[in-house]
């Protein structure tokens, strides 16, 4: 598989015109900051919960095309989902990035386009960054906290 195949149009679209990219979110919300000092990616994710579901979700940050596009596709795929469902989808995505076939093809929506990234081990962390931030935001919410910072190695 070539690089151009990895960067399918859908990834490039999310990279060039990210969904739900914003530096702030209205209402009470959880804010997590994830960073990967080894490749310089920084990700702010803000999650507003209503009725145990993802009611608002925006990301902001710096990073390579894969990390930015993946965060964008992630927000689109999970907005409106129940928290448990979103966590389950996150796990499905994580497994896909480790080479397993995804179980929830349709629910992943555009995120399915990142399947090819699994073949580029150094980029897997990039694709996972937004999803891992989401998982952290949900568990932070469930702990009753409102902010959390995580530093990853690559």
């Amino acid at each position, binding site marked *: 598989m*070539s*690089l*151009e195949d990895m*960067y399918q149009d859908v990834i*490039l679209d999310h*990279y*060039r015109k990210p969904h739900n990219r914003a530096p702030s979110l209205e209402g009470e919300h959880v804010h997590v900051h994830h960073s990967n*000092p*080894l*490749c*310089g*990616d*920084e990700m702010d994710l803000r999650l507003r919960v209503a009725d145990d579901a993802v009611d608002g979700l925006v990301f902001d940050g*710096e*990073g*390579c*095309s*894969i990390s930015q596009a993946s965060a964008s596709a992630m927000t689109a795929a999970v907005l409106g989902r129940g928290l448990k469902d979103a966590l389950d989808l996150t796990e499905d995505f994580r497994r896909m990035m480790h080479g397993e076939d995804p179980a929830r093809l349709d629910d992943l929506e555009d995120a399915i386009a990142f399947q090819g990234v699994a073949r*580029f081990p150094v*980029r897997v962390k*990039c694709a996972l960054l937004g999803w891992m931030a989401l998982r952290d935001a949900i568990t932070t919410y469930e702990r009753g906290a409102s902010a959390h910072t995580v530093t990853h190695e690559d």
Partner: protein
Amino acid sequence: MTIDAASLRSRFPTLGRELEGRRLVYLDSAASSQTPDTVLDAMDRYYRFSRSNVHRGVYPLAEEATDLYEGARTALARFVDADPRGVVFTKNATEACNLVAYSWVRARLGPGDTLLTTVMEHHANHVPFTYAAQACGFEVRHIPLTEDGRLDLDVARELVADGTVRFLAVGHVSNVLGTINDIPALSALVRDANPEAVVHVDGTQAVPHLPVSFRDLDVDFYAVTGHKMLGPTGIGALIARPERLEAMEPFLAGGDMIRDVTLEGATWNDVPHKFEAGTPMIAEAAGLGAAVTMLEELGMDAVREHEVAFTGALIDALLTVDGLTIHGPTDTAVRGGAVSFAIDGVHPHDVGAMLGSKGVCVRVGHHCTKPLMRCLGVAATTRASAYVYNDLDDLEPLVEGLEAARTFFAR
């Protein structure tokens, strides 16, 4: 003699490979250089003919292995113009820096003392010393950069003015900016303020590329690594004044570094053996010896001349790319061959991936210089770094790949 990179290439097997249907262009020698056939042959000869352990064997194989190992020490000493008694083999340059940090710095510096270093050090020449500082309570000061990526000697003079600087740890050539630091000027500056100060140089990026005379540099310690100078992985060396080694307690303890061992304790072997515990990197030393031979045959003046010419052309080629900025000096007279740069609006990861997909190997990331990245205000850079096997033919694929990255990732 000048270097004929194109014909040299046939001696480096990996360079004969194709990537994605294109000729491999290797521009990551600052991370690790390619290995020539003669180095592989030297290691193979050891494994296929004289495979045994060194030191004290009374059968011929063991004598041959010992000769190979000690011969490599002599060869490296000659190559960097040092006393073989001052050449300690390590697994890499990082271990060499740690040896100095543990056996010299930790044993001698404490509260009230200062260790001077710079903001451009590789982690190998930075973390062992800040880690030591936390344990021993001495202060660490950093020489900052000038606008054009050189060490600011005016500030350095202020940093040493109070006379507390007892140790200088500085890189000879930056692996990111390419800057060649003026070691004699720096050690003079430090020793003027404190004549007893000890100078440790990270020569990892210098020895492969410049003629280096340890004697002329007049420093105390000098770290090198084999895998960046045409040698194998798994070997490096600390070059030291033998008197310094003699004054130090050992670092790693075990077999071969002792004179005698009782239940209670041990007495140490002579230098450099006092610092070489356990079975050494025998095949690796044989390989490093062959690497040194090849560099001597090429001639280090010619190697440097080739680097200057190539780097000039590389910088010119890079600057044809829209929105590309070079970090560090652009004057080839004061820089080595590592050239880091940024492309507006394109993340280095994407640049590197695009180049890789076109058969061009460059490094992206922080290059183990996080403090320097913070000074430059970036998270990562893209770095192209050349060696004796690169020539102008490598520039076209590089520039083509950069243009592709710029277009592909433009928002």
